[in-house]
């Protein structure tokens, strides 16, 4: 099934898994090994996209809990959208499930690299946006690099 592959941020995983009371809480929709995550395509918001689509919508939530149970951040209901302003960069937004507010939190730099069959495309450079930095409560500044993102439509 089509999905988005993302390790999110390896050092963040390292922190929450090492801190006392730290943990990762993921809902049933999210697959993966626990060190990287597979967010499945949301058939309602983005049914059967083609490789040329300009919107890819995924479901699932991963919550990061830090030392002594502190909330660090949440990645939920990801959407990846093509550049709307003619610029080169794609946007990746996430939704705050509590407030139902969607934020363009990540900049996916440039055009994705496509696999030979065109079914998998990858952005190597993923950076936190101005609005995205606010979601992490000052822990990560604007421009903080996150792990590469890949969409797999096979």
């Amino acid at each position, binding site marked *: 099934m089509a999905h988005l592959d993302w390790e999110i941020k390896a*050092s963040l995983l390292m922190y929450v898994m090492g801190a006392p*009371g730290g943990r990762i809480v993921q809902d049933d929709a999210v697959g993966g090994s626990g060190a*990287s995550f597979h967010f499945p395509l949301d058939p309602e918001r983005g049914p059967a996209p083609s490789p040329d689509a300009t919107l890819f919508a995924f479901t699932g939530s991963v919550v990061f809990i830090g030392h002594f*149970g502190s909330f660090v951040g949440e990645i939920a209901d990801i959407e990846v959208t093509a550049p709307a302003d003619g610029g080169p960069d794609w946007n990746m937004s996430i939704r705050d499930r509590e407030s139902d507010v969607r934020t363009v939190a990540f900049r996916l730099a440039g055009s994705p690299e496509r696999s030979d069959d065109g079914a998998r495309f990858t952005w190597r450079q993923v950076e936190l946006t101005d609005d995205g930095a*606010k979601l992490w409560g*000052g822990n990560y500044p*604007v421009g903080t690099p996150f792990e590469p993102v890949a969409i797999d439509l096979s």
Partner: protein
Amino acid sequence: MLPLGLSMLWEPVDPETALRERFGFDDLAAVRGWVSKALDATWAITVDACPRMVISDQNAIVWARSDRGDLVVKWSRARERFPSLDASTRLLRGLADRGIPVAAPLATTDGLDRVVLDGPSGELSVTVLPELSGDWLDVTDHAAVLSAGACLAELHLALGSLEAGDATAPQGARLSQEIGDWLASGDRGLAPEASRRLRDLLPGAPELDGEPQRVHNDFRAANILTRDSAVVGVLDFDEVVVEHPVHDLAKASVYLSTLFTDWPPTSREVRQALRAGYESVRPLSPAEARWFEILVLWQGILAIPGEHDPAGWASAV
């Protein structure tokens, strides 16, 4: 310390299966054979034993005993990460060349610090590092904390001399805005008096001089090795970001005491010693000193975990 033999860093999966499916090795003996051949052919290093291996996602670390001492061999099969791994290896090399105590990559016989090699099931980006030895920073050791402060300043000077790349960076004005926004909508009210002090300090904050640059961003006991009260190793450059050095110093002041599953706040005395050590190498400008006070306070409030605060982070701000 991780157990001997093969283990996963934290994923709840069978390590033997992960080893086979992700990297194509049947068992740790097969890893040992491959590592021995690779290090002999590419680095001219003779490996005696590989007592430990840990897997995390598409990455692995193998500990090796060799004729060049105890080593760690790190590899990844995630091709999309190869460029960033190259960059982090260059960073380590640059810091080592500037005298910072880091695990400097061992160059191959061709003079390369990281190479792509054929593994059993695909290409691996591989680097070989010395295993640094020392004791984790003990924040009750005043001389060691002074040394850590001096080391952080030297690290900032070294990082400042390296190219920062094209990452975006926050400026002083943006920092004021960021903290102001956080006070307005992000503050959880866990330390109201500290928040009030922060709100009072912010309007008078001067323009922050100096340029943002790459900083370590995770300078704390768990990433600092010492011997005889002196820093002999700085670990983990995975959190490097572009920030102003005083922001990094402030964050280090707040989190310096944290070590693996032990997460106490850093006492005022230890923070003062860290700053004294830092300023023995890189004195803060008047503007930086004002911002240091603001940023320590902000980071201290951010570090409060919540109502459940057994280590007393709220009372430390």
